[in-house]
């Protein structure tokens, strides 16, 4: 039975401050991972979608959500993972993309739902905005990022790949 009353909006507000463990300048809400909050007589069910199938941050995120809900006396609560519809970088807000860029990570150009992913894309340097950049490694510190280097300012940078 639900002992406390919180609206869906209250819960979204509480959870929207939780940072993405791998890109702490953006929240899980801005990343589009937080899909829904279902409220019924069994309690509060936060619906989360993984960015990548094997994303190791999902466990931490689910734990962060539970801790936040517990701290705000949102009981009983649980976190469920849904795979459908599949997460896409299109769900990332423009604000999140801007924050990511300021942080030094080039934001994704588009989603990978189409065939563009097979083609070569021009990635803008997040530091000097040059388009004269080159891919160094298809993967970086995490599955969702590639490594690039800017030929003008010479700085290496990460690019958040389209997904």
């Amino acid at each position, binding site marked *: 039975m639900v002992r406390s009353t919180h609206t869906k909006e209250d819960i979204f507000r509480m959870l929207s401050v939780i940072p993405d463990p791998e890109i702490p300048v953006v929240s899980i809400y801005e990343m589009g991972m937080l899909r829904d909050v279902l409220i019924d007589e069994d309690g509060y069910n936060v619906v989360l979608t*993984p960015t*990548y*199938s*094997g*994303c*190791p941050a999902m466990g931490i995120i689910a734990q962060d959500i539970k801790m936040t809900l517990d701290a705000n006396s949102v009981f009983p609560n649980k976190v469920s993972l*849904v*795979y*459908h*519809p*599949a*997460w*896409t970088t299109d769900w990332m807000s423009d604000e999140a993309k801007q924050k990511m860029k300021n942080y030094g990570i080039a934001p994704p150009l588009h989603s*990978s*739902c189409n065939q563009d*992913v*097979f083609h070569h894309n021009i990635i803008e340097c997040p530091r000097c905005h040059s388009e004269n950049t080159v891919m*160094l*490694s*298809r*993967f*970086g510190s995490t*599955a969702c990022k590639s*490594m690039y280097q800017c030929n003008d300012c010479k700085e290496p940078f990460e690019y958040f*790949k389209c*997904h």
Partner: protein
Amino acid sequence: MTHQEALYSYCLRLGDNALIQSYRLSEWCSNAPLLEEDLALTNFALDMTGRAQALLTYAGQVDGSGRTDDELAYRRSERKFRNNLMLELPNGDFAFTIARLLLNATYEYYFFTELRKSADETLSAVAAKTLKEVKYHMTHATDWTLRLGDGTNESHRRMQAAIDALWMYTGEMFETDEADALLQDKNVAVDMAPVQASWKAYIENVLKEATLTMPADGYMQTGGRKGVHTEHLGHILSEMQYLQRAYPEATW
């Protein structure tokens, strides 16, 4: 065979393919020829572990035994594994790993493109997710095949040897059995004939561009669907399952 048995067998097959391939790729961790490859191959492995988790969790739900993904991964003997033989072969040299990745990722790309239309919502959702990831695996393997095939005499020789050695394992990917037939009637499983045609056309093109020769179809290895594996799977499992066998129920 009931619908439930067929679906369980189908999920297990897809889950085991992801799990065993992931295991082999993760063996490159700290051993790849370049740091960039170390990252790429192990990231592919991570995608596949995630896919295996989703599919084995679903398999446990479907068969009603309540077995978790971990129980299915760590408590089955090799005769119960349903993965394709190609995926359990040792990594060999880098060319062999790339050739296998090319053959399998291309297959997965066309396969999951079809599975996305499955009437089964869970399979369709896993397919949509996988498809996004597999595009990167396939592009990466294609790039390397071109580079090695059309590279030095030595890289060409190794790449050709790898393709030749793996060819007899490619037939198994397109095999169908009773479970396929039953599930296809309900629009759950994928019709393999068009997948095979698309696969062959893509591979033929890449090999040609890489100045490699596509082998002629000859004797094809088989057995994974029946749990009859090469001697290599047992060795994988003895290492992979060691902890759960030695300390049952151990958790993080």
